[in-house]
Every structure is written in C-alpha cells, then in structure tokens.
C-alpha cells in the first residue's frame, strides 16, 4: 500500500510544474517551426464549457495565461467543435472579425492556424499558431505537420490533466478522494492497524 501511495504521490508532486514546462516548450517549438509571432495552447474546461489559455509563447505571453472565453464561438470554437484544423491568412482589418479573433488570440493577427488537440475520442483543446511569415506560401505539407505536432501537444495536455485529477484525488476533492486518504492513513499507521486495514481492504476488493 505504501508503494501505491508513494507511486501516486510521486506522480503528482511536481508533475503540474513538469507538464506545464512541457506545454511551454511545446508552444515555443510550434512558434519556432512555423517561424510565427506567437503560439498558444487553449484547454477546454468542460465544467464551464470554456476555453482557457494554458500556455503561450511570443506575443501575449505575459497576460494571457488563465484567460477564458466561450468554447463554441470564433475560430478556436469552430476548430474545437468540428475537430477540423483551419488556417486563415490575409485577415482583413474588419472590426467584427478582429474583435472575435482577439478574444481567442490576445491580439489581432494577420494570419492564424488552429488545430484541435485530440486524444483518442476526446478533444482537450486547441493549438493556435499566429502570424507565420507572410512571404511564404502555406502548403498542405505544413498542414500535415501542424496536425502531427498537435498530437504531441495533445499528449502533453493529457498528462497535465491526469496530474491535476490525481492531485485532486489525493487532496480529497475528487470522488475517489477517500481511497487516497485511506492510503495515506495506512502509510502512517502502526504495524497492527496497518495489517488489519489491509485485510479489510482485501475483503472489500473481493466484494467488489
């Protein structure tokens, strides 16, 4: 049992920071690959049905983390709901479009690539790459690259979410919090109580 608890704890303690670094590195690399001005990962918060800035590289990096907007409007919302990537260039300075886009990007870009972050049948969020160099023509090979890259970002985001769920469970917030508390109690208990507790757990396991 102590092994289990240690394993869970090891998986969670510091995991948030590590995965956050992984996500930051991911958006930095996305920005570098496409020589873009900025890149960001937006995480879907299913409880509030909103998209939240989880990692940002380049323009807007300072102030965007944590910002939220509705999950099914604008370009990011379309990409999330339809699971289809989208690349926009030569965005005209139209007020309505600019306002809507700025909400999901932090500033008004001339060009925007957005791709869903998919893990199996779940959509975790959206990866955006803003303002590739305007002198280069976009190709379908880049579109494929964007899709492949999004897969990697999706795995990083999935790990971050798993770590958060595990931490919530350990801290007793999730529905399996009781299990984590029992594991912690057993860890600290004396030999006799621990043996009795494990016996009870074994009986519970057989019952279930």
């Amino acid at each position, binding site marked *: 049992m102590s092994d289990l608890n240690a394993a869970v704890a090891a998986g969670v303690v510091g995991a948030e920071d590590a995965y956050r670094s992984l996500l930051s590195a991911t958006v930095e690399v996305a920005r570098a690959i496409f020589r873009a001005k900025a890149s960001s990962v937006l995480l*879907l918060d*299913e409880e509030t*049905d909103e998209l939240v800035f989880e990692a940002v590289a380049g323009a807007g990096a300072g102030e965007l983390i944590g910002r939220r907007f*509705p*999950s*099914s*409007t*604008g*370009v990011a*919302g*379309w990409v*999330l*709901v*339809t*699971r*289809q*990537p*989208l*690349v*926009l*260039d*030569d*965005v*005209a300075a*139209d*007020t*309505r*479009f600019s306002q*809507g886009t700025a909400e999901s990007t932090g500033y008004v870009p001339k060009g925007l690539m957005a*791709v*869903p972050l*998919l893990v*199996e*049948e*779940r*959509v975790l969020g959206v990866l955006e790459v803003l303002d590739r160099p305007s002198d280069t*023509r*976009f*190709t*379908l090979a880049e*579109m*494929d690259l964007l*899709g*492949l890259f*999004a*897969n990697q970002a999706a795995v990083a985001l999935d790990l971050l979410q798993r770590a958060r769920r595990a931490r919530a469970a350990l801290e007793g917030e999730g529905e399996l919090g009781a299990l984590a508390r029992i594991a912690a109690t057993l860890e600290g208990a004396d030999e006799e109580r621990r043996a009795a507790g494990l016996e009870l757990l074994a009986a519970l396991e057989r019952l279930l």
Partner: protein
Amino acid sequence: MSVLAHESDEELPAWSLPAASGESIRLPATWPERVTREWAFGGSTGAGVRVCVLDSGVELDHPHVGIVQRSVAVTRDGDAISVADDDAGDLCGHGTACAGIIRSLAPDCELTSVRVLGEGYTGSAAVMLGGLKWAIEEGFQVVNMSLSTTKKQYAEQLHDLADTAYFKRTMLVASAHNMPVESFPWRFASVVSVGSHEETDPFAYYDNPSPPGEFCARGLAVDVAWLGGGTVNCTGNSFATPHVAGICALVLSKHPELTPFQLKSVLHLTANNVGGDR
C-alpha cells in the same frame, strides 16, 4: 416494404422482385456512352437544387453569398434538441466561407444555413446530429458538412443517418480528417468525403484511389467570404468540401434524377485523374 411498394402501393413481405415484374420497375437509362463534364454539368447554374450548409451559421447579406433561403439554429436543452429559425448569422465565419464557395460554383442554387455551433462544446455532437437529422428530413439534395466528431458513441447514429440520407437522395458531402484520428461521418461509404489538393482551379477534383478519403478538391489558400462582408484566405479540407458540394449541385440541377450512388459515379467519371476534365 418491397422493391415494388412505391409502384403498386402493395406491401410485399420482403425485398423480393416477383417473376416477370422487372419491366414494371424499368428505370430511365439516359447515360451517354461517355460521361463528360459537358454532359454532367455543362451550362448548369445549380438552379432548383436545395443545398444545406451545416456549420457555424451564414452571414446574411454577404456579397459573396447572396440570398440565403432560410437560416435555422439547432439548440439543446438537456437531452432535448430543437431546430428553430435563427437570425444570429455566423458565429465564426466558416459557414459563410462554405456558403460563398458553393455560391461561386453554383450561383443559382438555393442555400439554407443550419447553425450547429454556439451551444457549447459539451453538447456539440448531439447538436450536430440533430442538425443533420433535420436536414435529411427536409429533403435537401446536398448537405455540406465540413465537420466531424470523434465520439464513438455517436458513430452508429451518424452511420444510420448517413445511410438514410443516401437512400432518401440526400448527398452528404463531408470533410475528410487530415489528422491521424478516427472521426465520423466522412469515413462512411454512403457520403462523399473530400480532402484537399494544392491546385488553384476550383473545378479541379480527383478521385482518390486510396480511400476512405474519396475525393480531393481545392483546399489550399482559397479566398473565401468571411465575417463583416469581407474575405479571408483559407486552407483546410473544410474548404475543399464545399467545392464538391457546389459541383454536386450543378450536376443535380441538370440531372435531378440521379441518386447519390449515381452522383458519386458521375464525380468519379468526371474527375481530373479519370480523364473527366478533358
């Protein structure tokens, strides 16, 4: 139900054709020896064909879209899905882009917008399904679906809807996914699925010999209608799809008797790599 039910109004027990009754279901055979684009849609403007754009809505009065016959929105209240007239326009720009592409190929077709975006992510697959069901019940000849779902729980219902559409003569034109994931409905054989090529000719389309992505059409750097009456330069399979939807409208305007099976055959025979462009 039987093969003769619509002819004789008699309910026959199975999918059987009684002896010597083949003549009673004779179908018109008007196909030419060689199906060319001239035969398929030469001179066609898409007039009389009802096309549905299942998307983010369509901006009203956009100069590249023109008249939108009807706009509805699909909404969700718990498990209840409803469809009602809508004046919210387009919540993203994408639906307007698709409508504009279809209009540019088939200038006289009738366009209807079914907005399936805006109800939040959580119920989005159910809303999409509700919109598709409505479009099939309404009997549109062509439905443009630049969208997909990865949720397996909806795959079977979507499959049933796609088959229903196929037999009710509604051609579903769906975007192929260009990411390595399993998604629907574009994989189903009863729809026409579309990916992108890099050419600039809006009438260039290819039959892909390695399906499930069946056809490729223009999807790179396309100038499309967007919000606020403007245009944006866009790339993605979701822009290739309305090119094929527009061509379907042209063909059906000239040959309204074609079933989805026959229409797909026409697309094959007139594809660039089958020699149809010559």
